[in-house]
């Protein structure tokens, strides 16, 4: 499945400024659960930022706060200088599971955000078709999700997040549920896609390799309560291919992240 480039026009990436963000959950037994320790991140427009961290460290929490779907405990989140109080119209989200509506066709799933925002459906149908072609699903507009494989479904979910031309794309372990081979293809296709639109991306993953391969910057989170442990700028030329993984720089970055996880006791050497 080779992705065609160029069908989609460049998007204007937004800048994201997160300062001293915390989140405390009230658990069922009435205790407080600190999911995020003060977290501060500044992302410039058009940057691809990957966030890696152990399971339960607060990655999804961070994402849902930025998406404006869950209230923060303290701190500020600014998107293009605007405080996030509700979901920002320039933000698209891709979740770990595709969350396609089984009673809607592929095209109707992709146009869901357009319907909800009350925008002109016909204007965006062409764009939706372009996106589908770009992810190699040209003839699939009228199919139902149950007719697609897991990888295809997640591609549709990505189209759905991109149809509204988001300045910020949030992705929460989007390839976590896919098999290794599909995943590899998706990572490569995501890079191609992103290079053609160049918006701001916050990409959450628990895969060190995925993070280094995709990102301009990798933020490593500590175990819960999550903090940003290290901020790594990845200077490997794009487009990156599987061969990039063999470069000494690639290996160095991975080693650095591994060592942090070992130091935190997330990974142990036995």
């Amino acid at each position, binding site marked *: 499945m080779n992705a065609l480039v160029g069908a989609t026009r460049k998007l204007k990436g937004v800048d994201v400024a997160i300062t001293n963000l915390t989140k405390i959950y009230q658990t069922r037994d009435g205790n407080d659960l600190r999911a995020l320790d003060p977290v501060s991140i500044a992302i410039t427009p058009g940057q691809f930022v990957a966030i890696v961290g152990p399971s339960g460290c607060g990655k999804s929490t961070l994402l849902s706060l930025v998406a404006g779907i869950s209230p923060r405990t303290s701190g500020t989140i600014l998107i293009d200088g605007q405080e996030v109080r509700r979901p920002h119209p320039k933000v698209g989200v891709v979740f770990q599971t595709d969350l396609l509506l089984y009673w809607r066709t592929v095209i109707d799933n992709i146009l869901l955000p357009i319907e*909800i925002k009350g925008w002109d459906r016909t204007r965006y149908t062409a764009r939706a078709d372009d996106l589908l072609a770009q992810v190699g699903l040209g003839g699939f507009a009228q199919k139902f999700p149950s007719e697609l494989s897991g990888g295809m479904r997640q591609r549709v979910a990505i189209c759905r997040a991109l149809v509204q031309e988001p300045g910020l794309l949030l992705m929460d372990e989007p390839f976590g549920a896919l098999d290794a081979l599909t995943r590899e293809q998706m990572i490569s296709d995501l890079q191609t896609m992103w290079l053609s639109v160049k918006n701001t991306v916050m990409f959450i993953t628990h895969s060190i390799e995925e993070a280094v391969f995709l990102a301009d910057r990798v933020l490593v989170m500590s175990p819960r309560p999550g903090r940003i442990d290290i901020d790594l700028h990845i200077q490997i030329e794009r487009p990156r291919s599987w061969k990039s993984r063999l470069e000494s720089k690639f290996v160095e970055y991975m080693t650095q992240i591994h060592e942090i996880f070992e130091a935190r006791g997330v990974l142990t050497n036995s």
Partner: protein
Amino acid sequence: MTHTEISDQKHQERRQRRKRRNVRLLVESLAAPTVAIIVLALWQFGVPLLGLSAFILPTPLQIVERIGTDYRLLLNNTLVTLVETLAGFAIAAVGGVITAFAIFYSRLFERAVYPLLVAMQTIPKVALAPLLVLYLGYDFAPKCFLAFLLAYFPVVIATVVGLKALDKGMVDLVRSMGANEWQTFIKIRLPAALPNIFGGLKVAVSLAVIGAVIGEYVAAERGLGYLQLQASSQFDTTLSFASLIIIAAIGVVTFWAIELVERRAVFQREAAK
């Protein structure tokens, strides 16, 4: 092999596969009628063999014959029962779905009403029939009410369960697109709950028939329940059976009708496979 030979072979394979599937579908669709015919045949020929008179157990043909001769009487009473059933069911369907929405959206309402509903469910509603006659009279109202009473609860439960079963991720998804609660309801919650709601409606309509007929057993001057009771008291077992069969037919037909609506309104998960 040349290209055309390969495609020829493929064609043939496909044709064979289709043929095999058609045979299977035919066998499947004939299964229920075959069983029915066997049972009816046993009944038809078993009755004279056992020396039973029509007064004890009429044969299927006798019953069919009776439906033919008394069709006017039966039709009039069928209409009465049908109207009672449908009225009770309609009120239960609308009221049940609305109640379920209220339970889903209001914690207070859920706390206040849900336990009462469950408690009410444990009352044998049939035992209420004599009281209903006292309060609502002998006519249409108590039958309709009894049909409603039996049909209401399954609709409420099925709808609440359907609404609550929604994946929270779905809600987060549309929220992230900026959906308000009304949009969330229309785009996600309601369509996702529809299969459950229709499941509840199908159970409910069968119960509504039972409610109406029981209402007629207790006190009535019309309706299939009344007719059946009259026939039994006059030892007219054949007419009693004829009424019974039509009561069952009402249940089947209304069930089918709902299934028909369901097929148009609800996306079938299997259909796309």
